């Protein structure tokens, strides 16, 4: 019973190690239960994660983001195509009307339109006469500026006269305000009298003439017109990449077309401007979760986007960061998004869509453009990581809550009733022990109670037998030496006659000894004597 009690104590007191020699460290019932529960919970956790991975839930953020990007891109690309197409049309219309009007004005002054460069004194009057036309064109367009440049300068004697061209540039400072009754128009370039006579302020970066030293919007349409004299204006207009006019600070895109006289000779260009601010206000992605998401309209090269010549619509920090990059190589990913790389470093993830700015047979049809929705890679990685961290955290919380509940409930409803029941088992009187309400334990208590009674009875019997044997042994020690010699030979299985011969004694002497031995050992016969001997041998005891 003592040994049994020790095992119970070790089982329900997990910290206490078995101190018996040769005993092993045991694991308590409570700890076993906790480990089983934890193992179950972890199995479920791993199983759920495996299911999430297999079903693609962990990458659902990427998938959803791509869908959002695609929707945004479709909308933006369609708007850009429509708006830029409309501006192309207005450029052609303006070039047509300005060409005719300027040619007529010059004609009235006795010079052809192409001959104005020889008559700088006429420029102010001719350019001023086109102010209303240009202003109207600007007000009805969705542009931030309108201009025309004549192949002439007011002062051919100046050092930089070859790069200086007269013209007019009106800029709408608040193009995003639709139907404003008081549009904020300023004169960016042109004779100051035009501004003063028409209540226009001079732009802070106003100049008298255009600096065309690096002006593709001037040279390219003129070169196209010269090389393709039979093509209509609709095949000669040109969209410049993003550029900053000399002396100004804002990036713009320009659509320009040549001014042609009735003979088809070019004498200048005209067009419209889209400022970076107008582009931003018109096409800024509406997604609010990605602060650095931006839209870009960029020249599309051979698997690359030219960010340097693009206009961007996005938050300030996105625009500033993007301006540090130039050519982005486009890499198609296996599952989601395109990667846009510079020097093999992926900078952005996103999608792009070609935007058609020219007819197929335009002189500039070979210049391709694309609208793209881009996001810095780290932003989308961070976003997906955050989503998955959220998912994992919720799962982990669920698992932990489960373990805590099972631990608390297991202790209260499982371990404690068992330990209480086992404490009952340790009590002396199992027969009067209360019910544990655990059938198995109650059965065990009942069984142990009845068994205990049987064992007590048997033990009592066993104790009685042992007393007889002990008495026998005591009696053996009272035998004389002669009697002991006879007894030993009896114990070895010899008969009386054999003993007499062995001890060289008469049979009568042996019988006398035998009587005394029987008397001292309290046995009635040699058979009874031998039964004791066998019992001792069976018990491994010696006399």
């Amino acid at each position: 019973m003592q040994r049994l009690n020790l095992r119970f104590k070790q089982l329900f007191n997990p910290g206490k190690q078995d101190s018996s020699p040769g005993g092993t460290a045991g694991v308590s019932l409570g700890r076993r239960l906790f480990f089983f529960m934890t193992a179950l919970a972890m199995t479920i956790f791993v199983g759920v994660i495996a299911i999430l991975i297999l079903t693609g839930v962990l990458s659902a953020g990427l998938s959803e983001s791509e869908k959002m990007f695609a929707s945004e891109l479709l909308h933006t690309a369609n708007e850009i195509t429509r708006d830029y197409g409309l501006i192309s049309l207005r450029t052609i219309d303006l070039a047509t009307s300005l060409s005719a009007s300027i040619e007529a004005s010059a004609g009235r002054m006795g010079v052809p339109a192409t001959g104005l460069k020889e008559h700088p004194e006429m420029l102010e009057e001719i350019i001023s006469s086109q102010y209303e036309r240009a202003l109207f064109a600007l007000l009805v367009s969705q542009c931030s500026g309108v201009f025309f440049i004549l192949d002439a300068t007011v002062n051919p004697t100046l050092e930089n006269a070859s790069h200086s061209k007269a013209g007019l540039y009106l800029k709408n400072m608040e193009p995003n305000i639709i139907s404003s009754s008081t549009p904020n128009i300023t004169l960016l370039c042109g004779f100051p009298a035009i501004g003063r006579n028409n209540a226009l302020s001079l732009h802070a970066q106003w100049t008298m003439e255009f600096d065309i030293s690096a002006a593709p919007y001037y040279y390219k349409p003129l070169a196209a017109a010269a090389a393709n004299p039979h093509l209509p204006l609709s095949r000669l207009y040109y969209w410049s990449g993003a550029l900053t006019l000399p002396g100004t600070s804002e990036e713009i895109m320009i659509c320009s077309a040549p001014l042609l006289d009735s003979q088809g000779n070019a004498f200048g260009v005209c067009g419209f401007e889209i400022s970076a601010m107008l582009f931003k206000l018109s096409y800024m992605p509406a997604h609010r979760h990605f602060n650095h998401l931006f839209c870009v309209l960029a020249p599309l090269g051979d698997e690359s986007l030219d960010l340097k010549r693009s206009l961007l619509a996005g938050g300030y920090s996105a625009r500033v960061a993007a301006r540090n990059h130039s050519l982005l190589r486009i890499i198609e990913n296996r599952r989601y998004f395109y990667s846009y790389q510079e020097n093999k470093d992926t900078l952005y993830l996103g999608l792009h869509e070609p935007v058609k700015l020219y007819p197929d047979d335009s002189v500039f049809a070979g210049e391709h453009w694309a609208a793209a929705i881009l996001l810095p890679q780290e932003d989308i990685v961070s976003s997906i990581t955050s989503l998955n961290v959220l998912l994992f955290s919720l799962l982990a919380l669920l698992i932990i809550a489960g373990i805590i509940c099972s631990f608390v409930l297991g202790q209260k409803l499982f371990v404690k009733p068992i330990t209480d029941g086992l404490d009952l088992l340790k009590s002396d009187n199992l027969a009067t022990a209360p019910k544990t309400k655990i059938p198995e334990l109650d059965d065990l208590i009942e069984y142990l109670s009845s068994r205990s009674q049987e064992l007590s009875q048997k033990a009592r019997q066993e104790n009685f037998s042992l007393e007889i044997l002990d008495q026998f042994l005591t009696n053996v020690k009272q035998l004389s030496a002669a009697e002991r010699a006879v007894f030993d030979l009896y114990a070895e299985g010899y008969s009386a006659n054999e003993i007499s011969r062995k001890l060289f004694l008469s049979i009568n002497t042996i019988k006398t000894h035998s009587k005394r031995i029987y008397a001292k050992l309290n046995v009635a016969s040699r058979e009874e004597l031998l039964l004791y001997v066998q019992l001792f041998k069976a018990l491994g005891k010696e006399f």
Partner: protein
Amino acid sequence: MHHRFRGLLFGFLFAFIPVALLLICGCANQFAANPLILTLWHNYGGQLKETMDEMIDKFNETAGAENGIIINVTAISGSATISEKLAMAAGGEPGAPALPDITTAYPKSALLLAEKGLLVDLDQHFTAEELSAFVPQFLEEGRLGGGELFVFPVAKSTEVLFVNTTIFNRFAADTGAKLADLQTFEGIARTAASYYEWTDRQTPAANDGKMFFMLDSLFNYTLIGCKQLGGELFHDGTIDFKAPHFFRVWEYFFKPAVLGHAAIFDGYATDLAKTGDIVCSIGSTAGVSFFSPIVTYADNSSEPAQLAIMPYPVFEGGEKIALQRGAGMSVIKSTAERESAAAIFLKWFTSPENNLHFVSRTGYLPVTVEAFGELMEHEIAHISEENIKKLLQTCRLMQEEYDFCTAPLFEGIDEWQAQYEKRFKEIAAASREAYREQLMNGDSTRVRVFESVSSRAFDAFIQGFNR
């Protein structure tokens, strides 16, 4: 349960659960589904728009993102247009736009909205300690004469004297003129006369001298001039034309204007400065970014233009007083949540760091005491734009030496201002035209000609007013 084991378990749980909760909260915040979108109308257009756009983007990406607020600019226009739109919206006029959550407003346009109970008293959203950080006069102006703070100061301006020193130095080298002479209106008038003569001598034609200066706001000049001389332009809501100081102020611009020494122009002086048509002008500090670093002449030749920025001139014997200008921001009443969000934006925008960032790029003045102090000195040292640096240095000087006053606030002040400017320019332009004609007709005695064309000008000016 063994104590050590139990300790480990609970330690793990107590450590992990807060981390997990923080992560979840962090993620939840990042993915806030419905940020509050506040509409903003402002008058920082033109050259200032880029800086304002940058500031709003910055707010949306930082404090706005943290607090779930997005500022959406739905109108950028001149202050007059915004005032008109606000009046329309407040009056429920047909086709009027909905009122924004935040708008820039001058006290006079805010007064209209406040009288209709449409403005939030911003005292409720700022603690006394927070308000104590602002320049008291700026807050006082926003109280519209009452106790409630309806117009919050975000950026103020004053008026200063801008001088093209490239031209002036050339003129001074020949004539001995001094920049210091331009510290008084009398000195400006004398220098202007001298400049006219100097330029007249450069060409064979007679009487074709050039203008020297221009005032961006004749009304402000008169208002401040009267104050400098110890008087007031308005008495009981009406201009006191008979006051002796008024005539003095009036004449000190009228005479140069008629004689061709000062410009009569509907636009801003910066336009004339770009073409070298004037040498100096008095205008708002916010106009500094409109000065070009190059002067281009009529024949398309050009030269770099250096700019000196001097304190607002003072009439001889007068007090150093200058005008405090600049709109503030008002919050339109809506829900408590939107009003609080608007206050968060105002706090961010006027924090010394952001306020100085804005003013150092626009030529406005900061609104907090801290921003005006050491912080401003530090900012000045790091400004790359030379003209803004000069401007802020001058403004610091004026802050120490000048008293600032605000325009009077009463119904009809706008009409008075518009009439004043219009009448003055009409009379001055007509007198100037008559003066020129008489000179061209052979009368070479300028003084006599001037007297003949201007003898009845003042009376005509007064009588033409529609009271």
